[in-house]
């Protein structure tokens, strides 16, 4: 026994735990990480989320469908259109309403503009994590063009609420097309330039190539979605496997990469931006005619529906159960970031230098505001009880001590 203790002592003496967060300069959202390091190499990683848990699913049960639409858009400000679309699709399908083709096209365009803005934002934040600040400044300067488009036509820079129950509220006019096309063409040139930088800049390549590798099989098993999965060669894209509003009329091209490392994640996202630009221009010039909204009843018939939307970060899943009243009975949200955390914690992070952590973390484009949960604890099978907040907190403190 004493031997064992000594061994434990000698090994644990070399290990250190580096706690990071919840308030830290690299990420804009609170999350707590603990990296166990041996020297400079990370051997273990844990995360603790929950700082921005607001209880949206519960609040959704007390509001009517239109109000919930605005609430779920604020689950995450970056992919707000995806959340709105996923939720309102469920409601529309439950009510048996088919939205007009023109509304579908507008939804698809808004979704692609959102992807553009999200990926540009990510490009900046991720290169900032790697110490490449000029890229951060460049990409955020170009992102302002996208924000201008959003503001001019959807009325707000973030949380632009394109959807309303039964359709969309803004139309794509010829004015819009005339103004937007040159901007998009400029952006396309910029994206090609970034692709070039990422593939040729030596320092940047040293920090990304063969870093954070995760194999195809493992990615598949861990259930990664979105660009994280596509950068490992897993062709998983809701816009293609289960086409929804807009994408059933106008199919998109999928971008994948087989290199499985951090560099591949950059390449996939930038190529996706280029695809989005081409897609927006294409759809804008082939807009179907017709109405923008279909009539939607206030009371949604009882039933259940599930819908998936390809948000910029991956598959966004919504489950809505209606009980025939104006308010939904249950809204369940599963977001892409939560699926992708597994890849970081279980495999990618281990064996890398501590200095690579910011880039690996931002490689999956983490978003905290959409994946913070509360877990209710029940002891044993039949002994479930409702815990007050104080009890839960005390339990948490004791558990972590």
């Amino acid at each position, binding site marked *: 026994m004493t031997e064992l203790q000594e061994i434990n002592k000698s090994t644990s003496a070399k290990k250190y735990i580096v706690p990071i967060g*919840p*308030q*830290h*300069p690299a990420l*804009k*959202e*609170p999350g707590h990480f603990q990296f166990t390091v041996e020297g400079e190499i990370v051997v273990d990683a844990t995360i603790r989320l*929950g*700082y*921005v*848990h*607001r*209880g*949206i699913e*519960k*609040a959704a049960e*007390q509001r009517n469908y239109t109000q919930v639409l*605005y*609430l779920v858009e*604020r*689950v*995450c*400000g*970056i992919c*707000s259109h995806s959340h709105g679309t996923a939720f309102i699709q469920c409601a529309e399908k439950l009510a048996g309403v088919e939205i007009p083709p023109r509304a579908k096209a507008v939804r698809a365009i808004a979704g692609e503009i959102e992807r553009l803005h999200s990926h540009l*934002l990510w490009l*900046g934040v991720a290169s900032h994590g790697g110490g490449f600040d000029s890229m*951060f*400044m460049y990409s*955020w*300067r170009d*992102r*302002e063009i996208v*924000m201008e488009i959003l503001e001019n036509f959807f009325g*707000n*820079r*973030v*949380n632009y609420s394109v959807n309303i129950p039964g359709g969309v509220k803004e139309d794509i006019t010829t004015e819009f097309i005339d103004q937007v096309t040159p901007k998009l063409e400029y952006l396309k040139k910029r994206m090609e330039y970034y692709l070039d930088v990422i593939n040729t800049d030596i320092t940047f390549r040293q920090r990304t190539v063969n870093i954070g590798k995760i194999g195809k099989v493992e990615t598949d098993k861990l259930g990664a979605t979105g660009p994280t999965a596509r950068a490992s060669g897993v062709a998983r894209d809701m816009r293609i496997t289960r086409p929804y509003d807009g994408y059933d009329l106008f199919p998109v091209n999928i971008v994948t990469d087989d290199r499985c490392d951090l560099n591949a994640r950059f390449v996939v996202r930038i190529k996706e931006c280029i695809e989005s630009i081409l897609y927006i221009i294409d759809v804008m010039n082939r807009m179907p005619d017709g109405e923008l909204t279909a009539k939607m009843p206030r009371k949604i018939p009882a039933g259940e529906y599930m819908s998936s939307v390809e948000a910029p970060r991956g598959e966004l899943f919504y489950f809505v159960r209606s009980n025939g009243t104006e308010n939904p009975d249950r809204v369940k949200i599963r977001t892409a970031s939560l699926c992708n955390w597994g890849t970081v914690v279980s495999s990618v992070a281990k064996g890398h230098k501590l200095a690579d952590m910011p880039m690996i973390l931002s490689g999956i484009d983490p*978003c905290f*505001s959409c994946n913070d949960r*509360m877990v209710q604890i029940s002891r044993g099978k039949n002994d479930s009880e409702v815990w007050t*907040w104080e009890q839960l*907190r005390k339990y948490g403190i004791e558990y972590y001590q």
Partner: protein
Amino acid sequence: MQKSAIDLSDIQEDTPQSRLTIEQRLRNWARIKSPWAIHYNSGSCNGCDIELLTLVTPRYDVERFGVKLQGSPRHADILIVTGSVTFQSKDRLIRIFNQMPEPKLVLGLGSCSISGGVFHDCYCVVQGGVSNVIPVDVFVPGCPPRPEAMINGLLVLLDIAKGKRQKSDYNQPTIVENPDVVEAPLNAPEENGEK
């Protein structure tokens, strides 16, 4: 040095208080010229945070005013809080506020920080916004506020620090409105005289 930098004309020399007063004014002067800000997201939807980050990027660039985003609360003069306060982050918010050295200023961004916004009745959110947890000097409304409005909010905050405006009563916080679209040419003469 320019004449507007520090006004020490009313101080009598060689009194025991004079050194203290001079030191205080010197500090205040330095603080106003380059306030460092720290950002804490206490439960927002990210909308306000990404808009805050645009402030440090080329188009809006608040470093013109010397404002710089900083990592550690111990180096900061301004605490920028975004979003409603969740129960989980309440303690951390208070701790960060306490870690900041005096004198400190707090800027609340977004409708959420004012009243809880869309999350006002969620079970996990402190009722009534940030000012029920820590004292807030200036609020900027909007969901999210435009970057111009945020810059305006920061400038009002600096005015408070300079003593040009009164520090607000915590029960009646200063609400900075979105600035109207500037109709006049940008290089119009400034009229700050009557403040």
